[in-house]
């Protein structure tokens, strides 16, 4: 046992350990980046439980680009079991030369769906020409409380100047957006006052199911109404038209994540497996380098191996000895590399180097990557080591 321990010089293995860490870090970085991009996109409508739903136009590609009449809101808000509903008008606008998402909301209603924590300024959108900036957006555009920002709509001829009254943090995609009163979203989206992009709904599953809501919207089944009359917020009262136009729009009701996953799968043809295939491509690309490292590990110990062989050590024993070193080396480097990869990914994310359009992609921690990396590294290194050991024992390194 004493002989076994003395032949592996761990000092000589340091460069190899660093190389394995670099490979593992690149795999972990790729996984957390690409899975992060996918997860950020699927969570663009929020990542919540079954009681949170999104109502949007059936013909729209995404909830954000949909247009539905505000009468849908009127229809559902009075249903027994609907705990909260928030109509939203999302638009793309240019602030200077940067495209940003402006979400027109009723500030009191949106609070039911997100924990919006104001880090600076106030949370009241008391004036129409005011806005709350997400913390990441504020950093990106260099916005502070009291600043004025002129937005040019990408969809209509409207432009609007808003005063930033607060900067908020929600821990969601909203941190990359500008929240403004709902009419601002409608102007920038080029919508009439009785149209919105989507309606977010929170339901009490004991009283109302998703199917009940769908059937009620289709007019196939009448759902039970709330006993007490509804009190509308001041902003929503302004939007109500005395003679509402009739629109013929078919709506879909989906969970926020489901709505985005269906968009990615149907329109962009991307799913989680696509992202994993990129991770596997990086693993595949690194195989020969791992192989090279294993051969180097053996060749740097060629003299010791030959001495042990001369002393009577069998090939199997030598292989066992080197394999134990490989396993410990691979496991240690994979763990360090895994953590390093996530750290680099977070750094790239915080520097806004990895983004999905206007949204910063948050890195995803894919723990599955760690055993895969260890397994791949061990298998390739054992194979590489075996070949190199044969070369050494054939005397190819004997003279050095």
């Amino acid at each position: 046992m004493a002989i076994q321990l003395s032949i592996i010089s761990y000092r000589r293995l340091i460069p190899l350990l660093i190389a394995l860490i670099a490979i593992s870090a690149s795999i972990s970085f790729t996984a957390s980046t690409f899975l992060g991009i996918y997860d950020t996109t699927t969570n663009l409508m929020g990542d919540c439980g079954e009681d949170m739903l999104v109502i949007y136009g059936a013909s729209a590609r995404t909830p954000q680009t949909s247009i539905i009449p505000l009468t849908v809101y009127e229809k559902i808000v009075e249903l027994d079991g609907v705990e909260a509903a928030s109509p939203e008008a999302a638009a793309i606008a240019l602030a200077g030369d940067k495209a940003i998402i402006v979400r027109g909301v009723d500030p009191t209603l949106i609070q039911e769906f997100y924990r919006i924590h104001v880090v600076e300024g106030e949370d009241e959108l008391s004036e129409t020409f005011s806005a709350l900036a997400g913390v990441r957006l504020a950093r990106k555009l260099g916005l502070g409380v009291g600043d004025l920002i002129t937005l040019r709509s990408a969809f209509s001829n409207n432009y609007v100047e808003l005063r930033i009254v607060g900067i908020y943090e929600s821990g969601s995609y909203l941190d990359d957006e500008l929240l403004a009163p709902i009419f601002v979203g409608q102007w920038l989206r080029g919508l009439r006052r009785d149209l919105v992009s989507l309606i977010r709904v929170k339901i009490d599953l004991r009283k109302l199911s998703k199917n009940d809501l769908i059937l009620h919207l289709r007019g196939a089944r009448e759902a039970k109404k709330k006993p007490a009359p509804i009190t509308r917020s001041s902003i929503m009262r302004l939007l109500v038209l005395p003679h509402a136009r009739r629109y013929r729009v078919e709506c879909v009701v989906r969970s926020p994540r489901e709505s985005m996953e269906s968009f990615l799968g149907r329109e962009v043809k991307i799913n989680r497996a696509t992202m994993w295939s990129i991770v596997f491509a990086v693993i595949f690309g690194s195989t020969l380098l791992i192989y090279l490292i294993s051969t180097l590990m053996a060749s740097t110990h060629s003299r010791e191996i030959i001495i042990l062989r001369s002393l009577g050590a069998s090939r199997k024993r030598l292989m066992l000895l080197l394999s134990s070193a490989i396993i410990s080396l691979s496991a240690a480097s994979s763990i360090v590399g895994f953590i390093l990869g996530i750290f680099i990914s977070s750094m790239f994310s915080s520097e806004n180097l990895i983004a999905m359009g206007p949204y910063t992609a948050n890195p995803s921690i894919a723990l599955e990557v760690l055993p895969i990396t260890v397994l791949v590294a061990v298998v390739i290194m054992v194979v590489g080591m075996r070949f190199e050991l044969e070369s050494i024992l054939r005397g190819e390194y004997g003279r050095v």
Partner: protein
Amino acid sequence: MTSTFIPALRSVLNDPKRSLLYILTIAFLIMVILAPTAIANGYSKQLSDLIPAYASSRAIIMNASANTVSTSVLRYSLVKELRKHGVKEVYGELLIRSRLMAGNQTLNAVVRGVDDVDGFYRYMNIRVNGSKLGGEFQANVGILLAKRLNINLGDELNLVEGGAVWRLRVVGIIDCSCPCDYEVLTSLNTLWRIKPDLKDKISIVELQLASGRRSGDLETFLSESSSHVKVLRERPFEEAAQNLIEATFNSIKNWTLPLYAVILVAAYFTTTKISIDSQREVAILRCIGASRRDAFSYIFFKALLIIEFGIIAGLSLGIISAEVIFRALSLIFSTGSYQPPSLTALDLVKTMCLTQISTVAGAIYPALKVSGEAAWRSSYQ
């Protein structure tokens, strides 16, 4: 030094198995970087092509040094100059934020002064309940603002500006599904009376170019008229979409950056392995009188040749694999109309430069190390 190039090349060719292993080690890593970049370029181009080539004929003119509309100050004479230049739809507007009092309610509101009321209302598709602005100190109020402050036709608004209270009579309620819905509109002359320091000044000019007129003409005219202004297109959909596409696909390019560090590591270990493999050859070279420098150049050339072959193989594999992956995905998802993967000249130059730097940086140290050891090694022979 160049005398060692031919032996290095021969050595690479004489051991094709090992050489191929080293070449492919570098090539696979380059392929991993290039294939997603090429596919992303194809998707990016596809999306860019999908953007409708729409250029709005409407524009806003602002002071070039102003970042926002209300901080922009322009001469009103610019409007006259533009009209004289033949631009038919030109509207000078002055925007201020003032304290508004109606009944017992107060609010910070935007007051917009316009010069050509009829033209502006037509331009903005504004519907009026009541009458348009006629005389001085009359106001049209946006429907949302009117609802919010319970303002009705014939009511009076009090505008607090510069310590004074100005009284405006509401002659119309306007509705346009635009920001004017929450504003007070009045004539430019009225606003100049309220804000005398802004007399003959406006914030912005809104205009529409007649069909067949190019925006370049306007920009030339504005630069000739020595106006310190900037022209911003309205409805910049193409610009915004392009901005979003670039932000997304640049992420893929940014993702490749740390992978160059792995290429550096690969180059280092490839050269180290080449050095170990070549110890016997280096020892022989030293025995027949080669200097330490020659030994270094021999190893370095050998490594460089492997690396260059690796880069060429990597570029080819990258492009081929991108095509194969793309075709396979197109077949699976039936997306035949998508743009095939492509690499821009800039991508190629960037990849080649970064790979070259990483690989040469990775190769120098092991080559130097083994050339230093060569004399000692040769004594073993």
